[in-house]
């Protein structure tokens, strides 16, 4: 303790106290205050920047999610539209086929009817024509055959043969 006291110099103590207090005030005014202020400002700036970056990121995420949802919806919509179109097409084709079939069968029916009718008419005409011709031929033959007695006889005979054949 005595040695401690011997080491202690009151003059130096006073000088150190005064100089150190002056140093504290000088440093506080010209160094620490501006330094700490700028450090705090910078740190606040960095914090704000990080916060806004985080916010922007979240917004971006939301946007992407929205986009994806929209895209998915659009895809579903397209799928549905395509399906509908295909169905409609198939329906249309089926309907058209059916109609065509019906029309065709009707036409065929009509045609057959017409053919039948025409056939009947033609047959009737042919019959009458053949009958006229037969009569003409028969007339001529009869005229020829009947010019000669023998021939008449012969004709009768032939006719008889024909008749049996018929």
């Amino acid at each position: 303790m005595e040695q401690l006291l011997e080491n202690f110099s009151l003059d130096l103590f006073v000088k150190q106290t005064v100089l150190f207090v002056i140093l504290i005030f000088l440093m506080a005014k010209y160094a620490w205050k501006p330094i700490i202020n700028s450090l705090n400002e910078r740190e606040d700036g960095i914090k704000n920047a990080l916060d806004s970056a985080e916010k922007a990121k979240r917004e971006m995420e939301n946007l992407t999610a929205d986009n994806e949802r929209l895209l998915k919806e659009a895809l579903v919509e397209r799928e549905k539209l395509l399906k509908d179109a295909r169905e409609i097409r198939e329906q249309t084709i089926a309907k058209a086929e059916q109609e065509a079939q019906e029309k065709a069968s009707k036409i065929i029916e009509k045609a057959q009817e017409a053919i039948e009718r025409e056939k009947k008419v033609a047959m009737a005409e042919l019959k009458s024509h053949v009958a006229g011709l037969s009569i003409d031929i028969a007339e001529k033959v009869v005229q020829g055959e009947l010019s000669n007695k023998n021939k008449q006889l012969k004709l009768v005979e032939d006719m008889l043969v024909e008749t049996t054949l018929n």
Partner: protein
Amino acid sequence: MSINTFKNIILAALFLSAFNIGFASDANGGGGDNKEGDPVNTPEEINEYIKHHVKDSHDFHLFSYFSDGEEHHVGFPLPVILYGENGLSMFMSSEFHHDEEGKTIVTKGESNFVNLHGHIYELKEGETTVAFDAEHHPTNATKPIDLSITKSVFGILLLGALMFLMFGGLAKQYRKRDIPKGFGRVLEPLVVYVRDEIAKPNIGPKYRKFMGFLMTTFFFIWISNLLGLLPFGFNVTGQLAVTAALAVLTLVIYLASSTKDFWMHQLWMPGVPYLIRPILAVIELAGTLIIKPFSLMVRLFANITAGHIVLMSLIAIGMTFQKDMTIYGSTALSLVLSLFITLIELLVAFLQAYIFTMLSALFIGMAVEEHEHH
């Protein structure tokens, strides 16, 4: 810590210790057996030399060397400013011619001054020589008020200028750019470190008010500790008066900023039996007013002084062991040991600054804390 940093620290320590040994061996050159003008080479002389180095002095002594059996001192004088019985006197310390025995008398006006082991005395009127009592205290002289720029004061001024230049420069850089460059980039993390690791956790939200004191204290102690490791013989934080001034400032600050709550807890501790409260109050008061500042003062002083004494003693191995180990052996041993201790001292320089500032912050934090009422 990367390997490179470590290598740099070792190199720095090597440089410092080599410099120190070179510095000491300057005092070791020459020969002769007479007492005056004899190199410092016996254990007693080395003891004396170390004791002298650790103390404050009125001139700045760099080194001494011997040639032709004469002692030459290299250094520069510092101004002596005294306020004695006949008012202010000023002269350079060189007027004492390195005399510390009170033999050289400097006369200024009506006053006669002598230098006795680093302390300056003013002789009483009519006296021409110093008379001593049995304990070698002067009987016919008074101590004037000494405002001299002693070695320590010179160190303090240098430190202040250095700090002001470094941190003022850093402060100026922020006006132009957000991130400092050059040396400011080294200082900025240190400032942030003191703020975030020392001030904020110990004081809490009110830390801003005490930053000036804590920062100045931290860097003052650290830089002066480092300056003490340089071979110029500064020993600012190894002066009891300096550490006492720092400790008293801490005391004043935490007393001035203490809250009512703090004193309630000091004098009438809630939550303990009533009979114990007065005893606790005595203990708390003793702690706050005496033990805390005293421990701050002694811890720093003792650590730095011990570091200086150990380092110088290890350097002295180079001289005292020459007979037993030859000059090469003793120099090698001294170099290795002082390199090692310089490394430790580099750590201690930072550690003591950290501890002093941390404890100051802690004490301030205790004084300003608002307790929650139970």
